[in-house]
């Protein structure tokens, strides 16, 4: 049984052309001119229980639109969603009662009330028994260090504290499925680490299924077992991170320092590209899909006696840059 099934999801936004001048609102209302924009085009995927999936793409690619369709906030123009067998558009109340949803950009807590009050309200709303609430909160308090700001009104929390409080809130009713839209946005390194640790625990120890959008490639690399890339409303990649590296075949950078003199042959294998020569140091780019590292080193050794080798793998940022 899949936790998330999306079939041919499509979302077209129609916005009326905004009129200028007096009574612009009214005139807009009665005008028939609209501009339509296809935000999401024919997206299908399945996510199984216990998966931790990263959903990435440049701004405006359709990430948030997809998440909002999955969580029942937006209705797709066409296509279907099933979450643990339930339809969030026809049966919204029941479905969202079994989801955890966190939007990094806005809080679901009560702005003017102490953090703990929000948990009391949410517990009532989701029908969480008092003893369950206590048990889970003490667990989260430990994992997320909530106690230091337990009685502080939400509006006075730092961004990092607020995110932690929001995460705990989304898990209060113990959903199996968690949607996170940019949960680490704007956080410092420490706060990010804290939150990643919590998410890892949820996924690995409690077996929660998590779908996460982010612009922080470290989030993806450290947490996700699978990554989906969306661009211009379409899925352009869906698979593991290593195979994403392979698909793109970014070159590995090798810097060789020769002892004494060296001689470059006239014909260099096409897999090797010389990008820099500085005295004793030669820098080459190698496509690792075609050549193994050992083969390349053997080749380089024929040019002269090697004193030192330095290799640099393409980092994830570069990979993503290529996919976009």
């Amino acid at each position, binding site marked *: 049984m899949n936790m998330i099934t999306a079939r041919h999801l499509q979302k077209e936004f129609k916005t009326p052309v905004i009129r200028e001048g007096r009574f612009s609102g009214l005139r807009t209302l009665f005008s028939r001119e609209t501009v339509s924009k296809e935000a999401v085009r024919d997206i299908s995927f399945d996510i199984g229980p216990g998966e931790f999936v990263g959903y990435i793409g440049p*701004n405006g690619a359709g990430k*948030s639109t997809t998440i*909002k369709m999955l*969580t029942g906030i*937006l209705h797709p123009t066409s296509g279907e969603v099933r979450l643990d067998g339930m339809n969030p558009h026809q049966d919204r109340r029941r479905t*969202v009662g079994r989801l955890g949803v966190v939007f990094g*950009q806005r809080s*679901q807590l*009560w702005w003017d*009330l102490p953090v703990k009050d929000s948990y009391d309200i949410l517990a009532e709303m989701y029908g969480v028994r008092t003893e369950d609430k206590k048990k889970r909160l003490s667990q989260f308090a430990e994992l997320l260090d909530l106690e230091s700001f337990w009685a502080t009104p939400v509006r006075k929390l730092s961004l990092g504290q607020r995110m932690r409080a929001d995460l705990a809130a989304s898990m209060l009713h113990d959903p199996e499925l968690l949607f996170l839209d940019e949960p680490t946005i704007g956080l410092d390194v420490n706060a990010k680490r804290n939150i990643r640790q919590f998410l890892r625990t949820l996924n690995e120890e409690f077996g929660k299924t998590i779908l996460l959008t982010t612009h922080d490639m470290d989030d993806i690399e450290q947490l996700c077992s699978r990554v989906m890339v969306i661009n211009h409303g379409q899925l352009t990649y869906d698979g593991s991170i290593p195979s994403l590296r392979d698909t793109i075949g970014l070159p590995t950078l090798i810097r060789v320092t020769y002892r004494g003199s060296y001689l470059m042959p006239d014909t260099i294998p096409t897999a090797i590209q010389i990008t820099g020569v500085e005295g004793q140091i030669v820098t080459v780019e190698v496509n690792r899909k075609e050549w193994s590292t050992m083969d390349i080193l053997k080749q380089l050794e024929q040019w002269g006696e090697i004193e030192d080798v330095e290799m640099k793998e393409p980092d994830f940022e570069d990979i993503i840059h290529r996919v976009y």
Partner: protein
Amino acid sequence: MKRTSWFHLYKMLIRTSIRSRMQYKFNFIMASVLAALIQISEFLMVALVLHRFGAIKGWSLHEIGYLFAIMTLSKTLYRTFGNEVHHLEKYLVNGELDQLLTRPMPVLLALLPQNFRIMAGEVLQGGFILCWSLAGMMYSGQIGWIAIPFSLLIILTGAVILFSIGLATATLGFWTTRIEELQTITEDAARTAAQYPLTLYPKWMSGILLTVIPVGFVNYIPSLYLLRGEGGAWVLVAVAAVAVLSLAASLRFWQFGLTKYQSTGS
């Protein structure tokens, strides 16, 4: 899993709303005082108009006071419990409706208790004029005691009608996002017009106020029967039917509108 009743949740959210509001005590007190002042000045305006012109088109001072009071009290009841419907634009523009949609309860039930307030100024003002009008008409023998419970009923059906108009107008926001100008017409202007007898207006206008925007059923139509004995008791049944139908229609429209919600870019 324990089941909490909607009513219980609603009460809890109202309490939450009041507690949130109390965080800003000075603002809370200022807003209440200002609202009362506005109400008093509005009342003085009406009193002045009535005093100068007395009867309008065969409607006595007490009758017009009654129309005005019923409208004020119905609006107060609507705005006490349904104020956020009137302010839906804010939720559409900044996408705040997202959060309400992720809660496992009807969206309206989550929306309405937000920013709950008690409109003491309006209740006092409307209540005062209502008592004065009723007392005057009872003294002259125009109406009997039975008018009192009927008036309360009319206030309730009126609030339902005003809420339905407000909800239907707000729902248009799912297509247009901006709704304030439209609200000025369907809510404020229509309501103000219906504070006076509809016979004052040209046919097409009173027609609109009895069909498209049925504010006439809030105070004018029930008054025809209650104060002037036109028609029969069926008038009140018809008014209640209009209230129920408007509510049902606007709720359906709202449900449909929700599927057109566009949210905002992340």
